[in-house]
C-alpha cells in the first residue's frame, strides 16, 4: 500500500504562480498548455539526469572504467490543473535503456499530487509497474524523485547547483514545518563549512556565489516561517525566533569567511598582476632594444629572435597559468559536473590499466605549466644545436 508524502515547494512570494510553471527551460524539453482554458499545463519528457542527483546517471568515464556499469535514461511527464484553492495533477516516471527506447521501459510509475498555493505539496496514490527487482522500501526514494521533478518544474533552482538537492526533503504521513526549517538550517551550515574547506582554486566561483546563495535561502526561510508558523503561539514563536537567530549567525560566519578569502585573493591577484606588468615591460624593452639593434652594441647577437619570442610566450603563460586553470576548473565544475566528479574520485581510485593511463595524462595536464617548461627546455636545446 502506498503512503502519503509531504514537502514544500519554495516560494518567496508565498504564492505559487500557476502561469510560471514550466518556465525553467533548462530542465524541460516540452511544455504544452491548453490555450482554450489556461487552467491546464502539461510538460513532457523531462530529463531527470540533468536536473537531479536523485537518480544516478554515469559519466562517460565511469562507463569506460567499469564495463559492467550501464546507464539508463529516466524521464518524467507532469500535468497540472489549476483549481480555486490548489493545483492538482499527476506525474509519471519512466526508466528505459535510452531516450529512443522510451516505450520499452523497465520501470513505470505514477503519482498524484496536490499543491496548495503556499507551496505545501502532498503526494499520494503512488503506483509502480515494473518487471525488475523492487521492494516497498524504495517507495520514499521514488516519491522523492517525483518531488524533485515537480519542484524543478514549479520553482526552478536559482540558489544552488541544480543537481544538488540536499536542502529540502519530504516527510511521510504528515507535513512537518520544523523538519523543513531544520533542513534549511543544516544546509546553510554545510555551505558555511564548504567555504572554509573548499579548494580555493576550483571552488572560487562557488565561494563567491555562496554569499548570494545564503541570502536566497534566507528569503525562502523568512517566507516559510510567515506561512507555516503561528506567531501568536508564544512557545512556537520563541522556538522559531531562536532558530532564525541561529541561521542568521551561521550566515554572518559564512559571509565573514567569504570576505576574508576575497581580501586574500585580491592580494594575490595584485601580486600576479605586478609580476605580469613587470614581464610585460621586460618584453617591451626587449622588442624596443631589438628594434634599435642593441644586441649588436652589447655583443649579444647569439640570442635568436625566435628564442626571445618563444621564451617570452612561455614566461607569460607560466604566470597566467593559475588564473587560467582556476577559470577552466570552475567552468567544468558548473557545466560538466559528472566529469568533474569522476576525475575527482579517480585521484583516489586503485590503479588499473585504464585509470593508470588517465591518471598519467591528467597529471601532466594538471601540471601543464611545469610540463611546458620542459617543452621550452627542449625547444631551446634544439635551437642551440640548430643555430650553432
Amino acid at each position, binding site marked *: 500500500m502506498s503512503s502519503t508524502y509531504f514537502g514544500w515547494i519554495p516560494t518567496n512570494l508565498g504564492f505559487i504562480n500557476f502561469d510560471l510553471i514550466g518556465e525553467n527551460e533548462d530542465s524541460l524539453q516540452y511544455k504544452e498548455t491548453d490555450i482554450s482554458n489556461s487552467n491546464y499545463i502539461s510538460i513532457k519528457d523531462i530529463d531527470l539526469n540533468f536536473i537531479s542527483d536523485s537518480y544516478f546517471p554515469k559519466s562517460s568515464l565511469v562507463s569506460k572504467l567499469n564495463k559492467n*556499469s550501464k546507464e539508463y535514461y529516466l524521464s518524467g511527464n507532469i500535468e497540472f490543473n489549476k483549481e480555486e484553492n490548489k493545483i492538482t495533477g499527476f506525474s509519471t516516471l519512466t526508466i528505459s535503456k535510452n531516450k529512443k527506447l522510451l516505450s520499452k521501459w523497465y520501470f513505470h510509475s505514477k503519482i498524484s499530487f496536490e499543491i496548495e498555493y503556499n507551496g505545501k505539496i502532498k503526494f499520494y496514490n503512488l503506483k509502480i509497474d515494473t518487471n525488475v527487482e523492487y521492494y516497498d522500501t524504495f517507495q520514499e526514494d521514488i516519491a522523492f524523485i517525483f518531488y524533485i521533478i515537480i519542484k524543478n518544474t514549479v520553482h526552478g533552482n536559482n540558489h544552488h547547483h541544480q543537481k544538488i538537492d540536499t536542502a529540502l526533503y519530504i516527510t511521510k504521513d504528515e507535513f512537518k514545518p520544523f523538519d523543513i526549517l531544520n533542513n534549511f538550517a543544516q544546509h546553510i551550515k*554545510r555551505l558555511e563549512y564548504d567555504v572554509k574547506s573548499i579548494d580555493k582554486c576550483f571552488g572560487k566561483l562557488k565561494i563567491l556565489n555562496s554569499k548570494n546563495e545564503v541570502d536566497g535561502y534566507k528569503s525562502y526561510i523568512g517566507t516559510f516561517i510567515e506561512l507555516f508558523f503561528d506567531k501568536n503561539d508564544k512557545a512556537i514563536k520563541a522556538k522559531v525566533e531562536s532558530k532564525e537567530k541561529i541561521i542568521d549567525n551561521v550566515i554572518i560566519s559564512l559571509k565573514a569567511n567569504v570576505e576574508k578569502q576575497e581580501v586574500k585573493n585580491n592580494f594575490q591577484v595584485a601580486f600576479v598582476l605586478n609580476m605580469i606588468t613587470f614581464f610585460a615591460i621586460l618584453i617591451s624593452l626587449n622588442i624596443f632594444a631589438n628594434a634599435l639593434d642593441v644586441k649588436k652594441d652589447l655583443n649579444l647577437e647569439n640570442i635568436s629572435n625566435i628564442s626571445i619570442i618563444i621564451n617570452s610566450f612561455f614566461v607569460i603563460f607560466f604566470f597566467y597559468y593559475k588564473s587560467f586553470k582556476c577559470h577552466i576548473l570552475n567552468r567544468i565544475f558548473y557545466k560538466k559536473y559528472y566529469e568533474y566528479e569522476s576525475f575527482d*574520485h579517480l*585521484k*583516489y581510485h586503485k590503479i588499473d590499466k585504464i585509470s593508470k593511463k588517465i591518471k598519467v595524462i591528467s597529471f601532466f595536464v594538471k601540471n601543464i605549466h611545469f610540463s611546458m617548461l620542459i617543452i621550452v627546455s627542449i625547444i631551446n*636545446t634544439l635551437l642551440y644545436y640548430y643555430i650553432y
Partner: protein
Amino acid sequence: MELYIAIITGLIGIGGLLWNLFGSSKNRENNTFREQEAERFFEKNCEIDENWSSKGRVYTRGVGLIEKDGKLKFIKQAKLCDTGILH
C-alpha cells in the same frame, strides 16, 4: 644563451613535476576514506544497504537500476556530493 635557458627551464620543469608527484599532497590524510568512496563510485554503483550511515558527511541520495547476475534490480544509492567531496 639558449643552452642556459634550456638548463634553467628544464630544471624548474622537472623539479616542479617531481615535487607535485612526491612532495605535496593536500588530501593524503583523507585517502582511506576517499579510496573507499572512489571504489564505491566506480565499481559498486554507489550502492548502500539499510545499515549505511553518512557519518556526518554530505551525500546526495537516490535510487538506481543495475544489472546483477543477468537480472535488473533497484538499489539505494548514496554519493558524495560536491559538498561532501570538499569535506
